[in-house]
């Protein structure tokens, strides 16, 4: 039960926000759907940018190792910093793309 507590909490606050937004901000169901689409698009953008960064990162590390003999661990690509910066990068790219549409 405790494993589902967080999910239940998030669902409850989503419903609360939706009700408040409908009454106070006069938002419509279409706005919510649009927001969900945008959120999914951003997540998709983040994942694609992350994959791109990892692939490029691996290739560059292999190249540096081969050409210079200098050792860089592949594990540096797996960390919170990489995830956070990639998220920020994806956020900027996504909004840039939205602005240019």
């Amino acid at each position, binding site marked *: 039960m405790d*494993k589902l507590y967080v999910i239940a909490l998030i669902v409850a606050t989503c419903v609360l926000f939706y009700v408040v937004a409908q009454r106070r901000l006069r938002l419509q169901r279409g706005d919510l759907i649009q927001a969900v*689409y945008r*959120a999914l*698009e*951003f*997540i*998709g953008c983040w*994942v694609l940018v992350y994959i791109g960064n990892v692939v490029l990162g691996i290739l560059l590390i*292999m190249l540096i190792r081969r050409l210079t003999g200098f050792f860089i661990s592949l594990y540096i690509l797996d960390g919170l910093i990489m995830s956070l910066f990639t998220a920020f990068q994806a956020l900027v790219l996504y909004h840039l793309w939205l602005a240019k549409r």
Partner: protein
Amino acid sequence: MVDRHPRIHTLLRTVGLLTVISVLVTAYTPLPNLFARALAVPAQVQPADAIVVLGAGVHRDGTLGEVSLRRAVTGMVLYHRGLAPLIVFSGPSYEGSPIEAEARAALARQLRIPEKAILVETRAQTTTEETANIAAQLRQRGAKRILLVTGSFHLARAAPRFQKEGLTVYPVAADDIPLDTDGPERRLELMWVSLREALARWVYRAGE
């Protein structure tokens, strides 16, 4: 507003939706446990000529990383159980940190493992280098069978390398995430580590 890039929208939404579904399936089903077990090498604890504890990282102040400490302790427990007369600690210096193998050896001495039973490998940066250097040290001592201590996933890459060096390998897993973990966050972590290992194996194969 006219949508000039419908395909990009669809692609991003699809990837986003698949990601959300994957996260939920990973967190709330046994999928990561099954995936991890498929990648892991089962333990085979039995008497050997040496215990080999592979490197995992040390902090700048000389504190062993969590994974490094877990592996080192597992190796020391095997030694104290009398399963081998020799223990090899591996691990270099990382960006100015003290040498991991030396930090482990110091801990082993404090935990009553005699100096003459301890060997260190301090230079290797990769599993390939670790294997070659440790195998050379063990050959000099006539050791042929080793208890290899590292993570379950790493064993699958490391064990064949030691076998290629002519050693008989008995794998011993020292995992920081249990393969049968059932909390949502731990399952996500397990899946992440499993995917990283699958990628690492692919990169290793490509590099060979």
